[in-house]
């Protein structure tokens, strides 16, 4: 791993220029304007780096023409870096092996991007040869972040405004998601045999990795290290939970999870090994990204990297309510436990159907925003009101003790033309500022700020952090500070008063 104590060198410059120059090898420098600390990457040095010989332009004239034609077709189809559509994506995620072999690209086709991946490999290897490690590159609006995990390199290039720490975390979670599908066994194979083609093992997983990326865009689970509970009446949740605990016991399972879309309706786990929120995130993406689960009861191996990155658990997966995407998961260590789990699941379904708890979960899951708190339904003193009638635009409340968070619906922001994917990076920046994670690699971690306030043309953002709660809220930029503070206090009181319905008991 990279050494966190010394700040990583920054190779700075215009992103496009960096890519095209490094790719065509026509120029010797990739230096952008206006940067303090730049490393000059020389093209001749790039060529001397092992593993970079895949670039198109190094071939002889005959094959080169062919390759250029292939590249042109790929560009037209949006599969490689010459395509305009590809370049305009807000975020790219890449995975490649130590030897520069492409493993995954979020956009486009990783095969068509082999040349670009070879360039990334060359950049990383170049820094490694100097006894250093490449951490991040700022290039215009883009931040490019690098992460090394075993025999894999993970690279993010984002123009989303998310801070380096958050992109770094997303790469870490992308790696975890791959482990969730494969365990870390393939890394040993890959370390022994650099020519091993990891893509063979990752057939049909694009949906899962895309579901993870979607969660990065619209939900703060990743950087909050928390999960989103489904809002539902406490009494009905209680009967869901009891039925789930019974199913876990009868099925001999380790964990039971009832998902409703991207929310968690109930959770049954041993007190000794609680599910890590990031394992829950991986599990959610695994389920949402695998539409085949909706067709029938399924038994699938799945690895929870925080639980054990080297072993599979065996998951019984079944959609108890398809329209509301209510999905029951029972996780067992036994590879032959399907029938037992299926029997336990059948009794679970009968019980929650009879009590009406399943229908309540489904109703909540089917609501706009899957039962998120609507600002118009809040008491007026806590900032409630229709869009335009209240200065409160949006809020995010984390219950650190339970590792859960509550999110407001997006309608007030939508009325101002802001989408969740514009706002979540904003929260990510506030969170990084409060926890002072953005000053990269500084140790020891300073204690978080208690109160944070920041105002732009678009929002006034406020954050409170304590051991009992964290509140992040966005207000109209013209709102008075005093009004903001009062609303925040009432809002916290309201959440505390409603926590039986809002949070999943642990």
């Amino acid at each position, binding site marked *: 791993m990279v050494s966190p104590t010394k700040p990583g060198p920054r190779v700075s410059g215009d992103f496009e220029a960096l890519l095209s120059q490094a790719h065509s090898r026509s120029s010797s420098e990739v230096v952008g304007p206006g940067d303090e600390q730049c490393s000059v990457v020389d093209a001749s040095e790039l060529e001397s780096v092992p593993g970079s010989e895949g670039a198109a332009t190094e071939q002889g004239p005959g094959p080169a023409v062919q390759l250029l034609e292939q590249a042109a077709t790929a560009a037209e189809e949006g599969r490689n870096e010459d395509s305009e559509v590809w370049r305009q994506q807000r975020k790219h995620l890449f995975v490649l092996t130590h030897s520069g072999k492409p493993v995954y690209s979020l956009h486009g086709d990783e095969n068509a991007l082999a040349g670009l991946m070879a360039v990334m490999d060359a950049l990383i290897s170049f820094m490694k040869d100097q006894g250093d490690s490449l951490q991040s590159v700022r290039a215009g609006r883009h931040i490019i972040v690098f992460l090394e995990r075993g025999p894999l390199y993970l690279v993010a290039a984002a123009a989303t405004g998310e801070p380096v720490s958050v992109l770094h975390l997303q790469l870490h979670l992308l790696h975890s998601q791959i482990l969730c*599908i*494969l365990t870390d066994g393939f890394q040993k194979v890959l370390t022994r045999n650099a020519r091993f083609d990891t893509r*063979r*093992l*990752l*057939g*049909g997983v694009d*949906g899962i990795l895309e579901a993870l990326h979607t969660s990065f865009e619209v939900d703060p689970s990743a950087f909050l290290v928390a999960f989103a509970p489904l809002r539902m009446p406490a009494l009905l949740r209680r009967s869901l939970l009891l039925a789930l605990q019974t199913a876990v016991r009868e099925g001999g399972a380790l964990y039971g999870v009832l998902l409703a879309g991207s929310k968690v309706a109930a959770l049954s786990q041993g007190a000794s090994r609680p599910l890590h929120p990031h394992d829950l995130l991986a599990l959610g993406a*695994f389920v949402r990204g*695998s*539409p*085949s*689960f*909706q*067709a*029938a*009861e*399924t*038994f*699938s*191996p799945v690895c929870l990297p925080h639980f054990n990155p080297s072993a599979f658990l065996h*998951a019984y*997966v*079944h*959609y*108890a309510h*398809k329209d509301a995407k209510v999905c029951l998961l029972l996780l067992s260590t036994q*590879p*032959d*436990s*399907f*029938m*037992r789990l*299926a*029997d336990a699941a*059948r*009794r679970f*379904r*009968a019980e929650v159907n009879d009590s009406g708890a399943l229908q309540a979960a489904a109703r909540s899951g089917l609501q706009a925003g899957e039962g998120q708190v609507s600002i118009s339904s809040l008491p007026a003193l806590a900032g409630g009101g229709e869009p335009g009638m209240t200065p409160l635009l949006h809020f995010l409340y984390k219950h650190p003790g339970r590792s859960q968070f509550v999110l407001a619906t997006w309608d007030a922001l939508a009325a101002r033309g802001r989408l969740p994917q514009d706002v979540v990076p904003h929260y990510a920046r506030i969170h990084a500022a409060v926890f002072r994670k953005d000053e990269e690699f500084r140790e020891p971690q300073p204690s978080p700020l208690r109160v944070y306030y920041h105002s732009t043309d678009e929002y006034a953002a406020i954050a409170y952090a304590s051991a009992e709660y964290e509140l992040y809220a966005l207000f109209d930029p013209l709102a008075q500070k005093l009004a903001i503070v009062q609303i925040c206090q009432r809002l916290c009181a309201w959440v505390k008063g409603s926590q039986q319905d809002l949070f999943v008991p642990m």
Partner: protein
Amino acid sequence: MGCAGSKGPPARPADVKGVRPPAPEPQPTIPRVKLVLLGDSGVGKSCLVLRYVRRQFDPQSQVTVGAAFMSHSVHLPDGSTVKFEIWDTAGQERYASLAPLYYRGAAAAAIVYDITNPDSFQKAKHWVGELKKNAGDNIVIVLVGNKSDLVENRVISIEDGEELASQHSMLFAETSAKTAAGVSTVFELIAQKFASPAASGPAEARPPAASSSPAESV
């Protein structure tokens, strides 16, 4: 998801509480046949099962993750009934090492290939070898050439399929999950092997969680 719109809980039509364990039911001994589908990814295993069990076909069918379970009762012309417990396994390479979990103890296996894809035929041969080696002598195997509607793209002839099947004394059928041609034949071919009392031996082969259902050993 094209499969949406199907009504009710998918598997096990008799999804009422605890029907399974108590033995004293009207029809005391319906033979249960554990059937496993094997084959390369994308040959249409899930489509075959969904076509047969639910009479649906989804051209955008999604890649299977893990193994999907469905059960279905077949009523044969002679009045007998067989209950299939079908394991539709994922064709992806990363699941290959888990296949024994599903074929071990299976009474029947369908090895599926795509008549337009020679690689999938090679893969079928691989599965034949693996089953012959590891799955026990009594297992009934049917070789299935799917996508028979794609006549122009056919690469594997009927004769190729038949030859492979006869070499290893397997049943053989060509199907099209899209048009339904030949699909029920496959399942009825297998069912007939288990419906007659003479063939009750292999039917004792148990599902993976044998421990949970000892009552059913007929």
